[in-house]
């Protein structure tokens, strides 16, 4: 089937707390919708096949690879990107701790890494170290060796989003 023949669909969803309705081709990747159409470039593309986790966003409370989600799937869903987790200009505790514990180097994996941790803490506010490692095992990082990232997440426990 040629992409030309695919009709645009209307999708309604909540993005970073705001209701949004737009027309899009249903076969567009959520990643492209965010980066190209909505200019939310904090979500990164590292591998395009769901291996590196750089494009991680929160969809209905779960961390997903936005390169593997199509726009047609997001109707009535709630999406949170890295741009949406600071509240009223205040950094989220995860963001604060990523800074404090040196969890950022080049920063390309950082948004996805923070969002994977965010999804974990929503369902498990006090994860142990192994659970943290498991939660970010789908987020590759070549700079940090993960140690300071794990440390930052560990110190963000007991904090629910808000």
């Amino acid at each position: 089937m040629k992409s030309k023949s695919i009709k645009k669909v209307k999708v309604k969803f909540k993005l970073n707390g705001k209701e949004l309705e737009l027309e899009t081709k249903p076969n567009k990747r959520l990643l492209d919708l965010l980066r190209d159409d909505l200019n939310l470039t904090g979500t990164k593309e590292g591998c395009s096949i769901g291996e590196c986790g750089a494009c991680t966003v929160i969809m209905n409370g779960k961390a997903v690879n936005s390169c593997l989600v199509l726009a047609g799937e997001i109707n009535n869903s709630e999406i949170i990107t890295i741009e949406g987790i600071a509240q009223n200009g205040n950094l989220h505790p995860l963001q604060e701790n990523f800074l404090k514990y040196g969890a950022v180097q080049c920063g390309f994996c950082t948004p996805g890494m923070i969002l994977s941790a965010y999804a974990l803490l929503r369902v498990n506010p006090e994860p142990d170290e192994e659970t943290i490692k498991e939660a970010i095992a789908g987020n590759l990082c070549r700079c940090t060796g993960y140690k300071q990232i794990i440390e930052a997440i560990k110190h963000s426990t007991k904090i629910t989003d808000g």
Partner: protein
Amino acid sequence: MKEKFNVVGKPVIREDGKAKVTGQAKFADDYKFPNMIFGVMVRTKATHAIIKKIDYSEIENDKHIITIVDAKDIKGLKKTGLIRKDQPVFAFEKIVTPGDVVAMLLGEDEDKLRLLAKKVKVELEELPVLNDPEKALNEDSPLIHPEFGSNLIVHHPLRKGDIEKGFAESDFILEQTYTTPHIEHAYLEPECVIAIPLGEKGIHIIGSIQNPFTARRIVAEVINYPLNKVKIEQAELGGSFGGKDDLMCILSARAAVAALKTNRPVKIRYTREESILESYKRHPYRMHYKVGYTKDGKIKAMKIDILADGGAYCSMTPFVTWRSVVQATGPYEIENVWTDVRGVYTNNPYTGAMRGFGSPQIIFAQESLMDDIAVHLGITPDEIRRINGYRQGSITASGQRLENHEVNLLKVLDTACNETNFREKWIENEKHHNRRIPTIEFKENILKRNLILSKNEFINPDDIIKKGIGLAVSFRGSSLGAEGIDAAASYLSIQNDGSAYLLCGLAENGQGMRTAYAIIVSEILGIPVENIYYLEMTTAHIPDSGPTVASRSTIMGGGAVKNSAEILRKRFEDFLKDYWKLNENDLIVFENNEVYVKGKENLKLSFPEFANLAYKNGICLSSIGWYPGPKIHWEEETGHGSAYFTYVYGCQVAEVRVNIITGEVYVDRVTAVHDPGKVINLLGALGQVYGGVTQGVGYAIFEELDKHNGLPRELNFDQYIIPTSKDVGEIIPIFVEGKDEFGPWGAKSLGEPTLELTAAAINNAIRNAVGERYFNLPVNLEEVLLKRKLRPEDLKRGSL
């Protein structure tokens, strides 16, 4: 030497951190420009072939194509390269490796262009493919670049003493061969660049560029522009590790050619597959070591023969292999040394700079060798290194006396051994080398027995899991050494309100360089780190400071930043001495955003007040700092000389468990003791160790870029496996801060030392666990079980 610091050595939060945790940081692909079009590459299926004809007829009238650029559009140099000009921007004579690009399609719809790229017909005459560097040197092998007359890119010899006499004086001689594979940098951000035409003002390029000044030189010579009309701006860089140099220069040049032809901004962005296909790799090495030693453990002679696979282009091969020749013996004082390091062209992916730069390979070999000597002599690994290791005043293989800095090799070794209880654990593990895989023996008829095992029939996990501990040590020359010109510049400008702009001619690759520089300024002028705004790196605003490589940003760039701050400090002190009518002995202090005279509390200003006062009195508040490296020399023929002006030392101890049934190696702990000189930002320094060790673990037990006919088999992260959060146990960084006259307060290098030791330490730990020596990286499951690598073309590879 300053001993007490206000900011230096403390954990400081990155200046770019907030932008990076909020998603605001702009990486190259985050930039968009009006009217921007995309460039998509056209490649062939060949590995080695003569290009007869490129036929665009099937696509040239397609509405999605704005234009096509190839070598014919290049007005300047058609071939480029940082050392040797052998790499075409667009291939026009030959294809020499599968990553080669013959043309680029330009248009608005990138996806359409990708489909059309496959329809370009390239008429080729296939040539024999050379994948083996040894065979590439055969006289009857075809020349990959005939214009250079040989497939040999470089040969670095080093001769010291009398090698035959050394072997004659030895009680024992040991000979071993080691190999290491191609390694992908695997920066998380794939390559991206945008070229924006500026008409009479030249061209502006923004990209994921590791070395903006190098990129500027290459672009300028390809489009035939003067340097001042090529402005290269570095976007936030999503990791590099040495990998965004040559290829980014070429991509910048391609984008520039297309932007000038179309007069529109052109973006090139690579998919992961294209990135792995076309980017350069770490050199595979084949290393033959012959060593003679006495029964007391003194090494008398070492003969080393190394062949490096340079791949299809020269790239950094001459410099990578040069570091190898300088450091090939390891940090051991040996009277008689005979080393040959050769770099060779093949049709494999080309190889160049990668964190470590010719050292991880030789350290893997030489440190494996040292352990084998220790085992043979019945002494422990630390003892053999104490007998031969560098001390203050030792002479290196190239004849350089190690002085003017603390030679802390034995100090880092002792620290690591004490910290890990190395010797005791090593001796204990040596007693458990029984590699027999335990089996359960059923004495009665299996059909009649109860199949539930009784307790004494269980396999004891201790019988299949063997513990091991291993160490490796190294010395490493800081910065470029005799490779090239070594100097850096910095621009510091205080504003009237006491805030500041800072810029250095080196480039932030994610390592945290900008923060380290802000700390240095803060230490000297007392300006809080958060009041220092680090300017965007462009080649137009700061002197050429060479490339950001060789772990030189702290020692060289830091030196330049310190110089710029000291120039201002001197100027400010002179002004205040006059303004406040001070005596020669009065001490002016700049700290905590204040300026005051020690002991005279009435003479005190906040730094903002001071800045405003100085400005109103006509004092220039800006400076350019410069830090030239001291003179060094090298004799190519003999390999003699003072290769680097200073060195750093490190020792890593790895503790592993090996599952002798599956061949899995679990890295439980790596204790990393490094002397980087003075630590500037503790948080950043720790990050360097964690990250470097983790890359080293990948090098040791996972990573290998395999090729089929020169084409990488692993083109994405589903097949090229780098360590995840679950793959590495504890990492314990320890800093031994040796004194040095160079660098800011003796701060030197850390980024590369952290990676170079890990694979060697792990290999020694595996030997300590199972009693077997492995000679070929990576020591993955099949290497541990079968002592060979399994390839997809192997039949029945699962049932051996």
